[in-house]
């Protein structure tokens, strides 16, 4: 079973994506900020990370930066799922190793699942 880590502080969305992904046969873990995300990623070594950009304490970009420095999780692909659609944020995400960037409100959960599957294939 493939493992997904969702780093998302909005509970209503985190639960929604978790539910959908579990329905699709993934094992899902949730984290609400960057540090918790790093910790769970190191413990569980997920196949993919879904990352929000606006998180408490520090930006999602910091997850990308910090995870690069940790060998065990540095190669895990990251799908950024954010409501920030400005070019600057996207650029920062891609520069720091994000594999893809989706705007949450522009996609239904099943579209996000499709993208997750594409990234894992």
């Amino acid at each position: 079973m493939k493992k997904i880590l969702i780093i998302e502080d909005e509970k209503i969305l985190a639960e929604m994506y978790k539910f959908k992904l579990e329905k699709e046969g993934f094992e899902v873990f949730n984290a609400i900020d960057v540090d918790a995300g790093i910790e769970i990623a190191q413990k569980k070594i997920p196949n993919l990370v879904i990352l929000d950009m606006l998180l408490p304490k520090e930006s999602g970009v910091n997850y990308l930066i910090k995870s690069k420095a940790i060998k065990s999780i540095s190669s895990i692909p990251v799908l950024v799922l954010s409501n920030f659609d400005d070019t600057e944020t996207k650029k920062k995400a891609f520069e720091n190793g994000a594999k893809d960037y989706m705007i949450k409100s522009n996609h239904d959960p099943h579209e996000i699942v499709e993208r997750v599957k594409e990234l894992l294939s």
Partner: protein
Amino acid sequence: MDFYIISSFLNGIVAILFGWLIFSKNWKNVTNWTFFLMNISVAIWNLAYCVWFSRTDPVSALYWSKMLNLGATLIPIFYLHWTLSIVNLVKEKKNILIFGYLFTLFCSVLSFSDFYIKSVVQVGHFLFWPQAGPLYSLFLIFGYYFLTIYGMYQLFKARKWASGEKRHQINYVILGSLLGFGGGATNFPFMYGFNIVEPIGQPLVIFYIIIFALATLRYHLFEIKIILVEFFVGIMSLALAFLFLFSPTGILKLISGSVFFLFVIFGIYFIRIIHREIAGKEEAERISRLKTEFISIVSHQLRTPLAAIRGYADMIIKGDYGIMPDGLKSPINYIHDTSVSMIKTVNNLLSISRLERGKIELKIQEEDVLKLICDCIKDVKLAAKEKKLYLKYNKPKSEYPLIKMDAEKIKHALTNILNNAILYTLEGGITIKVSKNKVFVTIEIKDTGVGIEKDEIEKVFLSFSRGERGRELYTQGTGLGLYVAKSFVEMHKGKIICESEGRNKGTTFYIQIPIISQIPLRQDFNLPTKKS
């Protein structure tokens, strides 16, 4: 003291001072340091001119005339480099610049030889006017005329796409160039023994420096602008008044008096404009900050609950929470479709809000247009599938050049067109083709949808405008998508065209993006009006 001695001395000092002020403000900026080097060259020319003119013996006069010509030799290449930096073409035109610098180096080495300036002779009331050596014509053709005309040509070209403040800046530079180099050109006939025109380069240099400095100051140096302008208008007015009082002949009194009068008028005019501009800018910056905060709040706080409404409704529809009772199907579909419609409205309103802030900053990079099309299709393919519409993309086999664009904005435009096509197509589907010629890459989006009546085609790109059939079929649309698409494509100096044979005959949109474009990275953007 002679009129020319005073004017050249003042011009030299002013050139150094102004050049240094601009340089010290931001010496790393290519526009600033090239302006500084150009001014230093102008100063060498003027100060050497001042010394040369005051000489009483031909040997010394010949030496200083060579020195002043060294200054004149350096001006065109720094001018070209400066103008290219203004229009963001330094990288693209680096070969011309390399040629210019090598040629200028060659001429500079020659400038103290007899091949360049062979002697000084009396011409008119000038005791020791330099005479061109056999190689001086080379400098005139390839240095003075070619490099400066090429710089001005690039300015004129850039003027076509420039708008708002940028256009004014380019206008200033063109005016300064014509005055400065036009005036400078009057010095050359004497060097070839043609006593046909009075050399008027000196008095015009004042305007040349002031106009260039004003144009340069408009490039992110606003905080020092007012101080500098007032300082210079004051200094130059005094200097010109001094020149007027001490001009030896009636003609020179007339010239310097006219220059003084015009300068004072323009000086006061400039100061008033800049005062108004700074006050306006401060207010605009304050409003812009508020708007940015507002946009940030809207984008996050509004999109997050909408994403949840949309997402949960979609999961209920897809049966993730079990089989939905028949009676719930319609209401849940309404919830889903309405939230999607609201999200699109929010997205387009955010885009319009950004557009209406006036200044759009484009993030220009070289982009693969074919990949961009694939990404957009990927984003809408499920929406098409759910309406059982085909989505055909005839991907070309030939290679396409990378195109300079802001990919996000072009993607937004293309996605809006595709969403529009899906929305207004009930059966059949959408075919996407891409083609290219020497000028444009054209993306064609052809649907088998409800079509547009001929008399409505012109209105489809207006904000809040929707066709008759659009209102009949889909009441939630706002008519913002095509307006935003047109705005973003036009920011790239591209075109967006809509064609339809009429009701129920489908619609075809063409997005044309220039292959070789000189898109301003930062620009004022005039929103499309009803006439556009």
